[in-house]
């Protein structure tokens, strides 16, 4: 699916895990990204845990591709900035009066690795969990269903918004609107483009609201779900362990910073 959803359908153990277990794993990744002290540790976590999980989830190619697409540009920009400007003794080379240092390079790479670990955890969760399941897991733990509905529709409706935007651009071009780069023509494009998009959506809102009512959206009955989310005692224990590990990492980091 284009646009909003990055879920990739596969049959795998990772996909079958309860969404909250994967949320706990993501939390651990974020804690690690913030707390682990060195590049080696971060890369070890990525290669030793995240990559095997991606392989287990049969997502290897998509996972690595997304990591590269998002983190790649950061690796370049961060190493350039840090390499030239964060100082250090070991000069690798010079450009004019700017020195590129080994310490700077390492700092840049470490920062990029932190991003990589945080992103990797998020990708594992999102690529292996349909958003509907994630929302269901959250609403079963007390997340408001109306808010869950808004989040889900936002993800789903986004691609159709893109389609409509294209039709609107076509329609206005057919009325002689010149599409050119340049700030002035971008501004000229804004109203004819955004106007129909918003007006049309506003017109649809009342019909959408009625259609939701016709589906008993405001029924007072407690809601049920078509799919059951498989859970197990071992997963519950695993979740607690993951959360504890995340908390311990952060606490250790805080403590060592205070020392």
């Amino acid at each position, binding site marked *: 699916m284009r646009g909003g959803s990055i879920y990739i359908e596969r049959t795998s153990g990772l996909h079958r895990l309860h969404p909250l277990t994967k949320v706990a794993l993501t939390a651990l990744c974020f804690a690690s990204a913030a707390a682990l002290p060195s590049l080696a540790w971060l890369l070890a976590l990525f290669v030793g845990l995240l990559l095997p999980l991606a392989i287990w989830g049969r997502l290897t190619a998509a996972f690595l591709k997304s990591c590269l697409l998002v983190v790649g540009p950061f690796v370049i920009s961060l190493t350039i900035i840090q390499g030239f400007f964060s100082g250090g003794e070991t000069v690798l080379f010079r450009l004019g009066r700017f020195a590129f240092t080994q310490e700077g390079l390492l700092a840049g790479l470490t920062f990029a690795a932190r991003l990589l670990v945080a992103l990797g955890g998020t990708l594992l969760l999102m690529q292996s969990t349909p958003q509907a399941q994630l929302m269901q897991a959250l609403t079963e733990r007390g997340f408001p269903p109306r808010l869950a509905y808004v989040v889900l529709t936002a993800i789903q409706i986004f691609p159709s918004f893109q389609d409509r935007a294209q039709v609107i651009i076509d329609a206005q071009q057919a009325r002689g609107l010149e599409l050119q780069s340049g700030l002035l023509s971008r501004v000229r494009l804004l109203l004819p483009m955004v106007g129909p998009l918003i007006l049309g959506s506003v017109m649809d809102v009342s019909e959408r609201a009625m259609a939701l009512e016709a589906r008993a959206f405001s029924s007072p*009955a407690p*809601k049920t779900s078509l799919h059951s989310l498989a859970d197990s005692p071992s997963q519950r224990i695993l979740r607690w362990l993951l959360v504890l590990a995340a908390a311990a990492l952060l606490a250790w980091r805080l403590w060592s910073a205070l020392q």
Partner: protein
Amino acid sequence: MIELKKFSYWYPGTEEPALQRISLDISEGEFVGIVGANGAGKSTLCYALSGFVPHFYNGESEGQLTFNGQDMAALDLGQLAGQVGLVFQNPFNQISGARFTVREEIAFGLENLGLPRSEMHARIDEALDLVNIQDLADRSPFSVSGGQQQRIAIASILAMQPRVLVLDEPTSQLDPDGTRDVFTALSKLVSTRKITVILAEHKLEWLATFCDRVIALGGGKLRAEGTPQEVLSSEQMLRLGIGRTQYSEAAARLLRTKKLPVTLEQAKKALK
């Protein structure tokens, strides 16, 4: 089943009533067509018959509107949702957007009603079957044609097992294929399920072929009521801006009868 007695209705902040002193009695298992020019009150009547007037739109009303003898205003929308279903013109706006497959989309209303899982699956299978979209069950509801989307919308409502299905111009955005699919599904419902179907529609030839009874509206008033042939062949249809099928138009020039044909079959018989 649904009864209106001198029912009038004003949308909030309007002087002119959208419906004026309408009296109407719809019985169980009937297939009723509603015709009228744009602005004649078709949509408002659909909303009234499904309880959205007065529940969703406020506004003023006069006269009586009852469902199975109970005042519609006294029933709440949550209660009504399982009894009366409403299908709209634009298929896209009826897809909840919160579910990712057609099966889950149909489940959305059932989840809201709080049904147990096993019953949901049974009802979804049945609804898919009724409108003949079993093969779409695992597709995304956004990846199918308009006609298929409209059938998903109908199935989503049918799964809630309403006794009355009200449709407000469900085929107006559809091509001939989509229109045929929707009408075929509806006629199957009436004949096999004894569900009451009330359908507002401009496509006269289709209405004439399938409906038991046709109601013509003009300026918010009930102008004619009877069998499709009685209502749709009359000259009044021209004055009301509803028009007639070309079968009626041709036969009006050739035959001296009050009972003009409105369908191909009738025209063939009359002109043979």
